[in-house]
Every structure is written in C-alpha cells, then in structure tokens.
C-alpha cells in the first residue's frame, strides 16, 4: 500500500512529461493539414519551375528559328548582294567601254537585293549594336548607287572620269558598306551561338530533378506518417500522387532532354556548317574583289594581293581554316559531298587565279584581264553556286531540327499543368478521408 516517495515523484514527473509532450507534439489532424499544405506548395513549385524552364527553352528555340537564323541568313545575303553589285560594276570597268549584255541587269538586281535585305534587317528589330551599322548602310547605299550611275554615264560617253567615279564607288563599298555588313553578320553569328547555348543548357533539367525529387521524398514521408498514425499502411491517394510526381518529373525531364538533343542536332548539322559556309562565301567574294581591284590598278597597289593571301589563309589553312573545319564537322554523305564539291571548285578558282597572277607579274595585263573576266569569273560563279547550295542545305536542316525541338516542347505546358493537378488531387484525395476521421 505504502509507496516510496521516489516512486510517487517519478510517476508525477512522467505524467507531467506526457502532458508536455502532448502539448508540443502536433495532433494528427494538424499534422495531416500541414502535410497537405506542404504538398500543395511543393506541387505548385514543381509546376512553376517546370513551366518556367519550358518557357525559356521555347523562347530560345523560337528565337533561333524566327529571329537569329533569319538575321544571319539576311546579313550574309546582304553582303553577297553588295559584293555582287561591286563585282558587276568593277568587271564592266575591266571590260570594254560597251557594257556587256546582262551586266547592267546583274548590277541593278544586286543593288535592289541589297536594299531589300537592308529593309528586312531593319524590320527584324536588330540589336542596338547592329543599329548603327544598318543606319550607315541605309544612308550610304544610295550614295554608292549614285556614284556607279555617274561612272556608267561617263563611261558610255567615253569620258575617263567615269573610271574615277567607279574607283570612288568601289572604295566607298569596301570601306563603309561591306565592313558594316560584316558587323551585322558577326553580331548575328554571336546571337545564334548564345541562343543555342541557352537552349541546350542542362541546368533546367538538373533543377527539375532536384525539385521533383524533393517532392517525391515529401510524399513518401507523408505516406509513412499516415501509416504510423492511422495504422493504415496503404494510402492509394498518396501512392497515386507519388507515382504522378515521379512520372511528371521523368516525363518533363525526358521531353526537355529530347528538345535539347534536337536543338543540338540543329546546331551541329545546321547552324555550325551554315555559319562556316556563309563566312567562307563572304571571304571568297572578298578575294574575287581583291583580284579585280589589283588588275584595275595593275599591280601598283600591293594591298589587294596581300589581302587575297590573308583571306585564302583563313579559308584554306589546315590549322583551323574555314573549309577544313567544315569538312571535319560534316557527319553525313550529303554534307561531305557538298564540301568535296566546294573544295574542288575552290581549288579550280585558286589555280585560275594563279594563271591570272602569272600574267599580271609579266605585266601582260590585257591577257590577265581577259582571263579574269572569263575563266576566273566562271570559276568564281561555280564556287559561289556550290557554297550557296550547301548553305541552303544547312539552313534547311537547321530549320527541320529546330522545328522538331519546338514540336517536342509545345505539349509540355499542358503536360505540366495536368500532371500538377493530378498530383495535387491525388494527394488531397489521400489525406482528406483521414482528416475526416478526426472530426
């Protein structure tokens, strides 16, 4: 009957601890409500992050397809048009006073094409850095065309001053128009590169996997809690929510990965060769102009052939030249064949140019000019055609793979929204009956 004082005090302390524990530990319904709130917040966070990543990727793909690539192609086309106009005008300078048939149409067509490309580039919302270049070209192109017209009129009248006007026009084009066209092309190239980096980054998938993994852990922890507190080991709602969370995370990550692969293909098989070939085409046109100008000035200006040598090195050098690089990245028979064709025609062009050079070194300028305006012009045109065809193929591939990337991303927002709803509904559906039991 009688208990020791120590036993009585221990019992009182135990009862006091139990009260404290009951006061601090949440009740089961409170815990369940807390878990529901955490799961809802977690699901919303997963959905928001996934949507944000999908949106960024879609923006990058759209930018590549609808803005960056068209600007790249337009700026290359602008350079080709300007260089073509000057080639037509300066070739007429080398030829007889009587304008060869078709030369006038060639020149006018090139100038009109250049004007259209400038208008397209202006409308496309170029960057601030490119605006100055576009503005300069828009202002100076009419001046160039005016000088060429005066040159032509004087030439038709047999006035030697026409040649001076042609020299002035060519100088304006080389010193003001073409460098600005190159600037826009360079900026477009950098923009394409930056867009691909953004669109193929793996950072988004990493974040998604992390957030999805945390949500799944929380769902599993909730199921364990519910099983312990309610002694019901199988909660279909929470199980379903867990499966939906795993499924949404894996599906979204897979779709993003597929988009990244498609975009990488677009870059590797489309954008990379496009940039290299477009740059090659620009430099080939520059070297043609160098040869023409050297003949016009009959070797008294050494800068033109020095530039020709520098340009040839950039195109052809084994150590990182544009054509060897293009050859190295060609990964299918079509592109390899295209590059082989270009290589062959470039070799023809260089061989013909060497014959022109040999005649010029002998000061046999009439024969050199005859060769330059016939065989060399034909070789240059054939090379330009091959570059144009290969560039068109590369662009088509870029667009195909970019479209595939875009198609893969399109359903993603809906998938994410539905997946999030499913997770939320299943989780709440699993917790609600348990909560009702405590009413």
């Amino acid at each position: 009957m009688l208990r020791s004082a120590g036993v009585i005090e221990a019992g009182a302390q135990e009862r006091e601890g139990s009260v404290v524990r009951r006061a601090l530990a949440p009740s089961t319904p409170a815990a369940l409500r807390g878990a529901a709130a955490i799961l809802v917040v977690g699901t919303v966070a997963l959905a928001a992050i996934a949507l944000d990543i999908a949106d960024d990727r879609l923006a990058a793909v759209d930018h590549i397809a609808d803005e960056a690539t068209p600007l790249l192609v337009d700026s290359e086309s602008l350079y080709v048009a300007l260089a073509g106009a000057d080639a037509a005008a300066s070739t007429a300078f080398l030829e007889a006073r009587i304008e060869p048939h078709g030369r006038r149409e060639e020149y006018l067509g090139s100038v009109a094409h250049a004007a259209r490309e400038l208008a397209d580039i202006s409308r496309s919302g170029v960057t601030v850095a490119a605006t100055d270049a576009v503005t300069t070209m828009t202002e100076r192109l009419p001046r160039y065309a005016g000088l060429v017209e005066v040159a032509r009129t004087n030439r038709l009248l047999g006035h030697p001053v026409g040649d001076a006007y042609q020299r002035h026009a060519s100088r304006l084009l080389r010193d003001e128009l073409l460098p600005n066209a190159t600037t826009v092309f360079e900026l477009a190239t950098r923009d394409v590169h930056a867009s691909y980096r953004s669109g193929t980054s793996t950072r988004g998938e990493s974040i998604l996997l992390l957030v999805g993994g945390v949500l799944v852990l929380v769902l599993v922890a909730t199921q364990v809690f519910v099983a312990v507190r309610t002694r019901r080991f199988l909660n279909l709602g929470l199980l379903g929510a867990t499966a939906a969370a795993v499924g949404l995370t894996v599906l979204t990550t897979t779709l993003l990965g597929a988009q990244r692969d498609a975009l990488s293909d677009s870059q590797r098989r489309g954008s990379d060769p496009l940039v290299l070939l477009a740059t090659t085409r620009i430099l080939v046109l520059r070297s043609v102009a160098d040869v023409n100008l050297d003949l016009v000035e009959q070797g008294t200006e050494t800068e033109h052939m020095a530039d020709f040598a520098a340009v040839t090195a950039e195109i052809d050098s084994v150590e990182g030249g544009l054509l060897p690089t293009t050859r190295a990245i060609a990964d299918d028979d079509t592109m390899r064949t295209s590059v082989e064709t270009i290589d062959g025609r470039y070799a023809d062009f260089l061989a013909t140019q060497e014959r022109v050079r040999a005649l010029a070194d002998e000061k046999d300028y009439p024969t050199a000019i005859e060769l330059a305006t016939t065989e060399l012009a034909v070789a240059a045109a054939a090379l330009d055609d091959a570059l144009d065809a290969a560039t068109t193929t590369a662009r088509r591939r870029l667009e195909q793979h970019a479209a595939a990337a875009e198609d893969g991303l399109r359903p993603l927002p809906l998938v994410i929204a539905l997946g999030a709803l499913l997770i939320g509904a299943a989780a709440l559906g699993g917790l609600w009956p348990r909560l009702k039991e405590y009413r």
Partner: protein
Amino acid sequence: MRRTVAVVCLVAAGCSSSDASSVAIDALAALDVEVSTPTTEATASTTTSPDRARCEQDGLETVSYAPLEPLGAPGEVPPGSFMAELQQRGRLFVGVDESTPGLAERDAGEIVGFEVDIAREIATQIFGSADGRVVTVPLTPDEKVDLAADGTVDLTISAVTMTCDRWDDVDFSAEYFRAHQKFLARQDSPIATDADLAGRRVCVTGSSSRRILEDHTRAQPEERPARTDCLVALQEGEVDAYFSHDSFLFGMLQQDPTLQVLDLLPPELTVTHYGIATAKGRVELVQFVNAVLAELFVDGTWSRLVTTWLVEPLSFPPQDPPRWPATFREVPA
C-alpha cells in the same frame, strides 16, 4: 591556338566548346587587322646634292644628254647596249596615265594617246615594229617617277615635269612637250583672278603644282592621287578649282562642258617641260630616245601627233616642237 582548340572541340563528341561561331568570327576578325603590305622605299632625295645645287643655280632641269648619232634604221641598235637587252626581252614597258584624253586614255581596253604614240615610235626604232611590243603600265601621278627610278618600267611617258630634284632619281630625255599650269573651275565660279583664290580649296595631284600654288597664291591645296580624282572632287563640290597642266585640263573640258579653263598666273611661273623618265645609269637609252625625238621633230611626225590627239579633238592651242637648250649634259664616266 584558340582556333585549333575550337576545331578539336567541334570534332570531338560531347564537347561543349565555343564551336563554329568562334572559328567564323575569328576568321573575320583576323582580316579586320590591317594587312601589312610591303612599302616601296621612297626614292626621292631629301638632301641637296651638288648636282642638284648646280642644276638649280644654272637652270639645267631641261638639259639632257646628247642624242645618239647616228640613229640606225628601225630595228638596228648598238650591240651590247640596253636597247639590245630590250630587243632580247621583246617588250618595252612604258608607264603612262590612262585617264587623260589626248595624252593617254583607255579606249576599248587599250590605252591610246599622244604619249602612247611617242612610246610606239621609240619601240619601232628598237624592234623594227611597235605591234605587240609596247606594254603600257598605268600609273598614278605620285608613281610616275618612282616606278621609272626603280626600273619597274623602262620609261615613264606621263607628263613628268623635268625638275632638278627629280634629276637626282631619274634621267630625263630632252623635252618632248611643253604645257602651262592653269585652273579648271565651274563656269559660274567666282574665281576670275589670282586674288580670288585666297582661301579657296584647289585640287592638285603633284608636288610641282602644289609648290607653285603654295609659293604664289593663297589658295588651300588639297591633294588627290589621280587627275580624274580632282575632276570628281570639282564636280562633287569638294574643291573650288583644279590646278594642273593645260594638257590635262582641255581634255576635262571635253568631259564636262560646264567647266572652264582659267589662266591666272604668269607663264614663266607655270611653264612645264615634259621629259621621258628612265632609271639612272641608262644614259645610252636616254641618248637613243633623244635621237628618236629629234627625228620626230624633223620629219613632222611630232606635229602630226599633236594635231591628231590634242589640237583637233580638244581645241588645244597649236604649238611647235620644243626648242632644246644649246648644250647637253655631260655623260658620266
């Protein structure tokens, strides 16, 4: 190095390098660096040689070497001479202008004119015929002495004014044509006297014209590389007048009838004696050329060429063949 790294990365699988864009941008950037070109050493002397001092003191700029005597039949040249070397080579390289109507201009791909025909007469005497023997090399005004001095061309026949400082760099033939420097301006120009030139922008292409302008007027000279560049500058309103030889200016009137030639300075200041320039040390060639010129003066060919190329088409004032000084330069030992 960076380009090589980029290329390696492009080829290797799974590499996320700076890629094709960098290769392309580097190629363009490399060409933006100004390509260094070999510069030809300036051949103009900067110190006054004893010969030049004497030349200037005694007015010897138009004194050349005595003509070769006798001048053989066309195709006959002294054996072992420079002319024999030219015969061996088969061609005569002649520096000319290509945009001066009357003197030398491009027509249907060929350069033709009074000075080209002088070259053809010299070639005929060397080779027996000029057909296919004369290679005309177009020069800008600032090249005509240098390219003769360094032997790039055998002769420069391009309105080269005989001056004492140029005798340091080249040898000249005897005078083959005489011009006067005048002004080309718009017909509505306010310039009517030399006083009106004060503060006006006047285009020049050569040092002799610039010197006259700076020493005797208050005009502001503006240089251009070629004669037609000055005409363009005048037509575009970049300059108010063009000061140069009347042998050029009359040809420009033909190209633009809205212009006029103004004679604003005394003739003794503006007289310009043309000589055929060749590299130093070819005295026998100079004597040969002088002999040809003398023949052309005597047999009427010179007068016929002046009439054909200058008087009739351009209304250039008729002139007689230049009178040479009574003495000749001493042949160096």
